[in-house]
Every structure is written in C-alpha cells, then in structure tokens.
C-alpha cells in the first residue's frame, strides 16, 4: 500500500495552470527525487503535499489522511508530513534545541522533559548534539539546515519533503547536509526531494520523477532513467545539467 497517493491534482496561480493533473504514488521507505526545469512546478507539487499550497482539484492522501479538492484536515496532514526549506527558516529567536522542541510541546502537548529528550536525540542524529543552546545566527548554513532537518524529524513525520535544501549553501557545506539525508534514507525514512544534485539523486533515490510544464513527464528508477531517457525533454535536461 502506498504511503502518499496523489491523483488528478490540479493547481492554478490565477490563470497560470501550474499542476496539470499529477498522479503519483509513494511507498513507505521510498526516496523520490523530483527534477525538472525552473518553473516546471516541482516546488508547487511539494508544497501541496503538506498543504502550504491549496489545490483546485484532485486527491491527496498521506497515511490515511486525505484532502479532496483541497479540503480536509490540514493539521492532521501536517503532523504526518515534515518539510525542509531551501532557506532553512529556523526561528531566529529560539535556540537550536528550542527550535526542535517547539512543535512537539505546542502541537502534540509533549511534556517538556520528554520533548527535550527528543530534541537531543534528533540533534544527535544530525550531528549537532553540542549545538543545543546555540542560536541560528551562531551556526553555519550547513548546521542551520541540519537543525531544520532535526526540527522536522522531531514531529516523527511519515514522510519528509525537501525543497532544494542545499541550494542556498556554500559548496563546501553541501556534503554535510547530503550526508544526513543519505543516512535518513538508509534508515528507511520516506523522502520526497526536489534537487539539482543529479549524482545524489541517482545514488540515493529509488524513484526519479521528471517534471515538465506541470506534468510528470517521465519517471522510473533513477539509474535506468538517467542512463536511457525516453523523452527528448529529459534527455535534453540531463544533458544540460550534467554534461556526460
């Protein structure tokens, strides 16, 4: 049974038809890499999966929680879907530890001591157990992004969405964040990530989705899809991004 099920999803921004009928199934433990040209709708698709963008038509089900034509229990959905942003979006007035503890205590009512244990655990997982009391502006970009991952993990999401989470980082900081994602994938976390790191998508992903003009243009196993694109658009894209 699939963990995430999307059927016939449509989204307009005004007259701009951005998602033109998306059908997608993601099984538990899948690592999905979303690629495509700028403006093809990758971020929009990702953001609809936890309700940051409303949809006009179609169905979205995550672990039994459903949105029909954009209506349904958003908060229940969001508790199952974590998200990490390109720009980190850490809360600047809270320490790393407090950033991580906020949602468990406020949303789930987890007692403070327990939330603290959770925070320590997830910060350890991203390799930042010593930064519990640091404020975001005292951390490097890579560290901030790892805290953001930890913050999402603290809610024990069923699926984690990542939107170009290394694009705002200095090149030398990219690998420490990718290492964390790689480890999560190895542990069986379900991941849907928009990425420009083609090599990473091929190595870590078990499903590749190429978006083009608001549609899923081609998809399949990353290794075969990259090696043998079926459509000229994907061939073109792969060639442009990664001259072989």
């Amino acid at each position: 049974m699939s963990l995430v099920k999307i059927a016939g999803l449509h989204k307009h921004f005004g007259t701009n038809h951005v998602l033109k009928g998306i059908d997608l199934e993601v099984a538990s433990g899948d690592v999905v890499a979303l690629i495509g040209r700028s403006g093809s709708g990758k971020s929009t698709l990702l953001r609809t999966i936890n309700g940051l963008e409303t949809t006009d038509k179609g169905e979205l089900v995550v672990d039994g929680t459903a949105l029909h034509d954009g209506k349904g229990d958003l908060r229940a959905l969001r508790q199952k879907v974590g998200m990490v942003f390109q720009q980190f979006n850490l809360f600047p007035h809270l320490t790393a530890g407090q950033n991580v503890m906020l949602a468990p205590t406020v949303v789930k009512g987890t007692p403070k001591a327990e939330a603290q244990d959770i925070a320590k655990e997830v910060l350890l997982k991203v390799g930042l157990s010593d930064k519990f009391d640091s404020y975001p502006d005292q951390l490097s970009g890579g560290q901030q992004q790892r805290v953001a991952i930890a913050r999402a993990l603290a809610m024990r999401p069923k699926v984690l969405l990542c939107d170009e989470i290394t694009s705002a980082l200095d090149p030398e900081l990219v690998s420490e964040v990718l290492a964390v994602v790689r480890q999560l994938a190895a542990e069986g976390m379900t991941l849907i990530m928009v990425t420009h790191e083609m090599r990473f998508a091929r190595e870590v992903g078990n499903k590749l989705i190429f978006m083009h003009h608001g549609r899923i243009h081609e998809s399949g196993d990353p290794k075969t899809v990259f090696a043998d694109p079926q459509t000229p658009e994907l061939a073109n894209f792969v060639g442009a991004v990664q001259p072989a």
Partner: protein
Amino acid sequence: MLVQFSTWDIVRNLLDAGKWTLALSLIAFVLGGIVGLAILFARIADNRVLQAATKAYIEIFQGTPLLMQLFIVFFGLSLVGIDVSPWLAAAAGLTLFTSAYLAEIWRGCVEAVPKGQWEASATLALTYPQQMRHVILPQALRIAIAPTVGFSVQVVKGTAVTSIIGFAELTKTGSMLANATFEPFLVFGLVAAGYFALCYPLSLYAKSLERKFHVAR
C-alpha cells in the same frame, strides 16, 4: 491675582503644568498601547469583517485631525450623558488616537516577519494562534521597539492639542501665563523647551534602538 511674575514664578508654574503633560502622555501611551494591541489582533485576524472594521478605524484616526477627534469625544461623551471633564476627554481622545497609530505600526512589524517563518511553523502543524504566540509575535516585538519609542514622541506632542479643549497642561498654562505676564516670547520659549526636554531623549533613544537593531540583523 498676581500682578508681578518673576521668571521663577513662570518656570515654577510651567513645571507644575508639565506634570500634567507627562501624566496625560503616560496614560494615553499605556492605555493606547493596550487598546492598540486589541486593534492589532483584530487587524491581523483570520476574519474579513474584523480586518475591514479595524482598517477603517485606523484610517479614520490617521486621516482626521487630532483636534477634531478630541472635539468629537468631548461632545460625543456629553451627548450620551457622561459628564466630561477636559481631563477625561483628553485622556480618552488621545488614547484612541494612540491606539490607531500603534496598531498600524505594529501591523507593519508583524508583516516584516519573513514569510518563511509562517511557512515553517505551518509545516510543523502549529495553529494560527500558536504561530502568532510562539513564532511571529516574539520576532515582531523585537522589530517594534524602536518605532514604538519613536511614536511616543508624537503622543507627548499630541497632548498639546488637548489645551484647546481646556485641559490645563503645559501649553494651556503657557497661554495663560503669556497673557498674564505680557512676555509671550519668554513663556512660549520655555514651553517649547519643556516639550523638547521630554521629547528629545525619547527621539535619541529611538534612534539608538534603531541603530542597534540594524547592527544586530
């Protein structure tokens, strides 16, 4: 009636009156802040009617003279049977005036919190009140301190207008003294100095807060 006023008599009377200016400023600022906070919450609430009503409230107070606001409060309150002293009308009028401006300043501060903060907290399944309380307002508060202190200068200066509805604060007392002493140049010079002494430190403080804030960012 005093026939002769020494300069010291003038200064003493003005200092006395200055206390009323200070008291009125404090009351208007504190009460205006409380009312303004309520207006702010309605202004940014997830409710069209509240938004529109408070937007109109703010635009009306920002689009009409403080003097007219005081007149309307003064004569309006007496219409509904409340026996209004100039003191009460001044405090009520200036409170409303202050609340509208502070609400608008603070709304700007809430909007200055980056959109990503709303998104990140929404993603974590926080409700709107939770987002406000834990994520948005703490950040908006930091942004708000400098402009709020800056606006307190406008409140102090606004108290001068209450002299026109007969509240015996610094300006009113100054007018009376100027008439009695035939020394308007000296008296109004001193009155101006009194306001300057109250306002200038606030202006400087606001400016230093602003500078500190920009460095901190």
